[in-house]
């Protein structure tokens, strides 16, 4: 596997000097080399699976606590407030921006997507938020808290949270 690092990080092993003097060994510069690591996971959404199936059918599913009735926009089948089981319900497809940012950097595998907008969406009558991308906007001057946004769904679902995004309504 070819290393994605710049060569400057590594010891040039061909030029590595041997001290021939055991007393000098504690002063030897470190040998620095490349190691690769890659894992494919068998990932399960478990009890959250209906949410991802819903996105493929243009629906956003939230959950509602059976006891204290707290409504969660990001689904969880156990209530944050009281630990009781929750049931599924359909969220509206429009909401408002609760907070936002424009990312000019990201985790390495997301750098090619920069810059991108992240938003926390609030839905009327729902107690928690949903993290998503805001698309169709370039300039942050056109984004503000309380702005109305509507859900868009991928036509070719990958059954990932990215199957859903929001655009200005």
């Amino acid at each position, binding site marked *: 596997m070819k290393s*994605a*690092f710049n060569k400057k990080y590594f010891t040039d092993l061909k030029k590595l000097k041997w001290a021939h003097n055991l007393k000098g060994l504690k002063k030897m*510069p*470190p040998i*620095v080399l490349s*190691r690769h*690591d890659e894992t494919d996971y068998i990932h399960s*959404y478990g009890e*959250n699976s209906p949410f991802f199936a819903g996105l493929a059918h243009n629906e956003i599913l939230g959950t509602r606590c059976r006891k204290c009735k707290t409504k*969660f*926009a*990001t689904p*969880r089948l156990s209530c*944050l*407030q009281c630990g009781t089981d929750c049931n599924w319900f359909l969220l509206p497809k429009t909401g408002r921006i*609760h*907070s*936002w*940012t*424009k*990312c*000019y*950097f*990201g*985790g*390495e*595998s*997301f*750098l090619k*997507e920069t810059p*991108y907008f*992240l*938003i*926390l969406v609030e839905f009327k009558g729902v*107690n*928690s*938020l*949903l*993290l*998503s*991308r805001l698309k169709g906007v370039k300039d*942050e001057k056109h984004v503000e*808290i309380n702005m109305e946004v509507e859900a868009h769904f991928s036509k070719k679902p990958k059954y*990932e*949270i*990215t199957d859903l995004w929001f655009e200005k309504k």
Partner: protein
Amino acid sequence: MRPVYMISGGVSKFAKSRNRLTFQAMVKEAFSYAMRDCPKLQLEHIDGSIASYFSDHFQGQLMAGIMAHDYLGLCPKPSKRVEGGGATGGLCFQAAYEAVASGRMEVCVAFGFETMSRVRTWKGNELIALASDTNFDYPLGGFYTGYYAMMVVRHMHEFGTTVEQMAKVSVKNHTNALHNPYAQKPMMISVQDVLESPMVAYPLKRLDICLMSDGAACVILASEKAAKRFGKKDIRISGIGTGTDAMRLSDRPHGKVPLLAHESASDYRNMRYPGVHSCRAGRMAAIEAYQMAGIKNPLHDLSFVELHDAYTSSEIQTYEDLGLCKYGEGGMFIDSGAPEIGGTCPVNPSGGLLACGHPIGATGLMQAVFSFWQLQGSIREHFGSAKLQVRNPRRGLIHSHAGTGTYVTVSILERD
């Protein structure tokens, strides 16, 4: 629980890369410094250790804790690892406290390290973001700075906090660090420099954000009897507190503020708390620690604070969580000069994470070591300059923080 004393500490220099040493040797450097600073203490007096490191990914080595423990010559004594994201160091400190307070150990070593230089910066950001929900949060950007940016955008909306106020935190911490030889990136900078540094995630710029680091730190805690025996019965841990909140920022409730002794419900009539602008875990940790230490008014009862300023915005949020000012007044608090060296309550006199660096598992323990030296009045001895020495300190607070405020620890150290 019985009284617990901090009897020594050491830090192995925080830097972008420390690849001349393995993590074990870095830990040993910090440990040996602590042992030298408490000459009556010998290896056989130590009853066990707690290891602190956050990520298995950076080192690519599982059970790294035992490798450091055996390197220090502490086998076959008890040891374990604690882990809780960015608060790992603070949790480790408290686990060592518990080992001594419970009577299980007379002397316990808490050591921590991280080797973040082993991956590229943006890969490091990706690995750190695995500490967000990997089904609902991570696939959208895998970026903690993005999460913190949304928190502060809401803080600005609710309270009118400004980017200039955030920049002042960066200036304070980077310039404090000019006198701290352990700091990774001391800098003489201006508000303008911070505002003109490259945007990372609006409104957080390069100089609003801490660095990736290699480094280690070590703390030694002891019972009253052992502290007396080793001639170090000066600094007692008078309070510990830990709070938690949901991993996902989107799950945070909008309820009432848990009040500190000097606050009243009328201070926060219309506030929806914590939302994404405040950290309930930090507030709960403060309440628990203040109750134990008998702190009624933190701004006046604390001589200084070392808090988890991974971002300038998190320092401002934390002023409020700790009750140094009311919720919503964090921006004004930095404007007031209170957290500056020589102010009412210096905050991050060491330079904090912003300037010292943030080798995650070591960070919370580094705060303990710097605070211990402050309370001893030995900053000159350890830093080679007394510029950062707080005058006549009586009581210091250390604050360690994980995730977007998921685990937060507050510990109080004071002169006995």
